């Protein structure tokens, strides 16, 4: 760095003021001009978050929202060079600092997560699937999954109920958000635990339905299996209809 210590310090103080609004004495600056910078920078962060989290904005009081924005801007060192990805860092910041507890809105973190994944799935880089067959055996063949998805776990079902109401239905909820390959639309699917298990093993471990059923069969009582098989076969069919499952992999099994 070829800046003198003095110039470096000037820049630090300048940006410190922008982020915190703390009184500074920068010689040879125009105070109204300096004020504009704090206003413009904070507005930029505020507008980005308002756009990303319309539901959270609507359920928090103005004061609570302003607290989040001020604390985030002053206290979080933004890492992404792409401001449209900053809402993810905001969600993480709010979650880590437990603002949901402070505001007595324990669902806040889940709500931000839910709102963020819609942006995430909408914008994520295209994930080109491997070449796949349209026809196959849904039980034995390995399934090619649409990779443009996120699967998240929520304790408050903010995707099913109004935020306040979600407090009365806490539990383990699995939410799959994916991009429909025909029109790029983001769609949400609420997955029961059993389907989540199957989905993860198919999508992440590349297992066939039959292989997973075998694993489950070894751990559960045999009389349950026919019901599970029926249930899973319906689930697989629905996943194909929704274009979350795309087709069958070209795999040569021995």
């Amino acid at each position: 760095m070829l800046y003198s210590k003095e110039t470096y310090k000037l820049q630090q103080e300048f940006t410190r003021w922008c982020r915190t609004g703390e009184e500074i004495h920068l010689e040879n600056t125009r105070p109204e001009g300096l004020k504009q910078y704090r206003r413009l920078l904070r507005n930029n962060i505020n507008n980005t978050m308002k756009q990303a989290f319309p539901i959270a904005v609507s359920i928090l009081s103005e004061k609570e929202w302003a607290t989040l924005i001020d604390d985030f801007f002053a206290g979080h060192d933004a890492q992404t060079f792409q401001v449209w990805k900053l809402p993810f860092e905001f969600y993480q910041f709010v979650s880590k600092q437990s603002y949901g507890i402070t505001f007595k809105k324990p669902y806040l973190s889940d709500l931000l997560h839910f709102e963020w994944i819609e942006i995430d799935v909408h914008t994520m880089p295209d994930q080109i699937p491997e070449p796949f067959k349209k026809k196959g055996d849904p039980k034995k063949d390995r399934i090619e999954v649409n990779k443009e998805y996120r699967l998240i776990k929520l304790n408050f079902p903010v995707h099913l109920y109004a935020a306040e109401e979600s407090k009365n239905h806490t539990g383990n909820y699995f939410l799959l958000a994916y991009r429909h390959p025909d029109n790029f639309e983001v769609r949400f699917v609420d997955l029961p635990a059993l389907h989540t298990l199957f989905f993860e093993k198919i999508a992440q471990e590349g297992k066939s339905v039959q292989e997973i059923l075998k694993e489950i069969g070894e751990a559960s009582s045999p009389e349950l299996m026919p019901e599970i098989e029926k249930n899973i076969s319906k689930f697989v069919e629905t996943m194909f209809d929704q274009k979350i499952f795309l087709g069958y992999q070209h795999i040569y099994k021995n």
Partner: protein
Amino acid sequence: MVKEDINIGLGFRREIAGNFLEEGGLHPDFIEVAPENWIDMGGYWGDVFKKVTDKYPLILHGLSLSIGSPEEPDWAFLKKVKQFIKDYHVAVYSDHLTFAKMDNAHLYDLLPIPFREDAVKHVVQRIKEVQDFLERPLTLENASYYTSVAAEMTEQQFISSIVEESGCNLLLDVNNVYVNAFNHKYDAREFIDAMPLGRVTYIHMAGHYKIQPDLIIDTHGEAIIDPVFDLFDYTIEKMAPVPVLLERDFNFPEMEELKTEMDKLRTICKKNWTSDVVQQGNI
């Protein structure tokens, strides 16, 4: 990218995206985007971006290079930019003569570098490093600013020294010259005269907003005012033809209004840069 001497471009923004692809829409000679808004973008917008860049030549005008930061350039970011330049056959990569990152935090806006000798040295070194990495010259824009910070030289001296010593090119924003001249009470034409006009790769034109009687904010959200058109006319008369971009970032008007502004820019360019018109004028 130049089809003929006169090239009038328009910033490609999501809000007006449809106008770039529809029949009878806007047909600029080229478009300009911030790479930060499009790198790694997939889905619907990735698809639109592919279509638009298939149709128009592209200039990149970035936001996060932060050439005036004390810290190291973000090489991971620049690697992505380099690839993006390759993928989209980009003619020019520009950013601003400002800083946007400090103490390991992005600030997402353009902050004024103190106009000082040590800052010139620092920025020159950074520009050289970035140019070496990208294997192409960098183009930097004279930014608008609402206060200088403990300046020890004029803005003209600051910009000229950096351009001269680093070998970078200049993106001359004529509206910014007008805004700065108004806010900091100097003469805009004298400022233009002091610029290294031979190093200007392209020009920005935009609107601004007077927030109080003695302060203008560079919003890119209004129509270009006549004194800025006049300053543009004054400027380009002294220059060889370069592409000219209309910057409009929000508060978008009817398409017709943008067309009219682009037509007006074209007329002024033709007046100054088309030889037969010049000859006619001499008769």
